[in-house]
């Protein structure tokens, strides 16, 4: 709870820093705020679970753990906004504040206990992201991404809300535990059709937000057009918060209607894995490949939802989100530095990077191996735990399919690695090293180190929840 208050208040304070007309202070201040919030969040870990606002928000270990992921991801991502500081971007204070405010939305999504808070949280997160997607105002591709994201996002919100209204009509409450009791109550049987339609519409609404097939169309376009820094934020924080919210909804509210929704979600899982992985193979732009890869990772996370295996699912999704977020931040950070200098987003833009910037190439390689799920990286154990939870519940066929799809993944994740290590730079200009500050290098090393530590000692965080 204190993290929500701190982020809101300090976010506003950060906004006022914009009046000083000194962009230099903004980045350190924003990072300091996040360090403070992370510390405050950790303090909640050992406290007993507490409810706020008439039981509409509950801060327990589940919410503290996922809050930790989103805050840490943002903290590790922030140093790569350094170019905006250097370029004297006019509205920088607003962008940092919007990032902080959107984190408030993410935290509400992971700690909600009432559908009202879920809705408000999703909207705080999304509305900030609509603005940030279009933050490169004169770039037509950024404009297009903002409009597409906005129209698709508010369409999804409408569908989610209609679902919430129907579930409310069937159970008479917005409170998760009471909805769970209402769904299980045989006296409500006459409302079952309405309840099922409401559930389906809610699933569609949330699937839009986490970009799961068949509601993923907007993802590649939006991810490609949005400035790279905010794409990284979108594909990590929004996804983590979305899945934490989804798991909570399914576990607490709809667990007694499993026979209805497990086949639905399973079909979506298969479709998401297929479209994400096969789509990524066909791409020539590294940024667009990462967009499709984020769709495929939504598919792997869905396996944790299908399994719905209590603690195993929660821990699996937590570990996967953490490993995925760190690897994705590393990949996007390297890509952003390269794109900023070389002005090209295709694989060829990465050519010869191993010679000019061995560190960047190494970090990118570790990130790609983790996303592909190669052993000794965090991504491997992420997949391992989720698949384990699903096998435990007897979904063997689904797991076999997911393993085959992750083999497809190896192909496209290795393409940037091949470009960096085996192809020479195309022209003179590309042969000059990419500019990286010492601090950014340190953060990149930290990201690679975290990925490897998660892969070597997964037990550090795999049983937290």
């Amino acid at each position: 709870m204190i993290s929500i208050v701190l982020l809101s208040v300090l976010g506003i304070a950060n906004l006022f820093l914009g009046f000083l007309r000194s962009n230099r202070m903004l980045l350190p201040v924003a990072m300091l705020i996040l360090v403070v919030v992370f510390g405050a969040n950790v303090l909640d870990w050992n406290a007993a679970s507490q409810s706020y606002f008439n039981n509409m928000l509950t801060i327990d270990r589940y919410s503290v753990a996922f809050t930790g992921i989103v805050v840490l991801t943002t903290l590790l991502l922030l140093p790569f906004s350094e170019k905006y500081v250097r370029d004297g971007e006019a509205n920088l204070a607003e962008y940092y504040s919007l990032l902080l405010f959107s984190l408030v939305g993410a935290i509400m999504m992971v700690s909600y206990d009432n559908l009202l808070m879920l809705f408000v949280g999703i909207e705080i997160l999304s509305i900030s992201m609509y603005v940030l997607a279009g933050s490169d105002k004169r770039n037509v591709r950024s404009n297009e991404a903002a409009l597409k994201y906005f129209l698709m996002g508010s369409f999804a919100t409408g569908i989610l809300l209609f679902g919430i209204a129907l579930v409310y009509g069937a159970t008479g409450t917005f409170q998760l535990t009471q909805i769970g009791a209402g769904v299980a109550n045989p006296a409500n049987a006459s409302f079952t059709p309405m309840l099922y339609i409401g559930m389906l519409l809610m699933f569609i609404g949330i699937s839009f937000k986490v970009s799961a097939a068949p509601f993923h169309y907007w993802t590649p376009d939006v991810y490609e057009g949005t400035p790279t820094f905010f794409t990284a934020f979108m594909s990590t924080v929004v996804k983590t918060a979305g899945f934490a919210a989804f798991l909570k909804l399914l576990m607490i509210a709809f667990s007694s209607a499993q026979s209805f929704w497990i086949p639905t979600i399973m079909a979506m899982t298969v479709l998401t894995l297929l479209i994400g992985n096969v789509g990524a193979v066909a791409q020539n732009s590294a940024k667009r490949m990462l967009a499709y890869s984020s769709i495929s990772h939504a598919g792997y996370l869905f396996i944790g939802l299908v399994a719905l295996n209590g603690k195993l699912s929660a821990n699996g999704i937590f570990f996967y989100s953490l490993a995925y977020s760190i690897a994705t931040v590393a990949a996007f950070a390297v890509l952003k530095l390269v794109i900023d200098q070389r002005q090209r987003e295709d694989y060829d833009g990465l050519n010869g990077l191993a010679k000019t910037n061995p560190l960047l190439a190494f970090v990118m390689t570790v990130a790609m191996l983790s996303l592909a799920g190669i052993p000794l990286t965090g991504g491997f154990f992420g997949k391992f735990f989720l698949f384990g939870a699903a096998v435990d519940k007897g979904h063997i066929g689904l797991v076999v399919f997911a393993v085959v799809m992750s083999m497809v993944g190896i192909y496209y994740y290795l393409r940037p690695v091949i470009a960096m290590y085996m192809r020479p730079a195309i022209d003179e200009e590309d042969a000059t090293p990419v500019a990286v500050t010492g601090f950014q290098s340190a953060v990149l090393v930290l990201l690679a180190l975290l990925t490897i530590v998660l892969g070597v000692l997964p037990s550090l965080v795999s049983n937290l929840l």
Partner: protein
Amino acid sequence: MDQNIPEVIRTVPLQYYIYFATALFAIGVTGVLTRRNAIIIFMCIELMLNAVNILLTAFSAYRSDPNGQIFVFFIMAVAAAEVSVGLGIIVMIYRNFQNTDVNLLNRLKW
């Protein structure tokens, strides 16, 4: 005026509210999927949100539970925030394209 508002709402059977809200919602969805002007698409999204508001109010009156009506206030407030951001984005698009037709937006294609 000696009846209170929930009683007035309850003079119409509940299923009529459900049919009406569903029809309104379907009109909104159809509009989003078929129209090509960003402003009209936006209006259709607002129509969907208003269908939700009617449905929530009706359920709330029938169940004598105020939570549904509170939810409506939140939807209105959030929709207003969304409108301000959305219109901002559409104005930005209009400045760069001199048009708000979504078919023009095809620079990002695979």
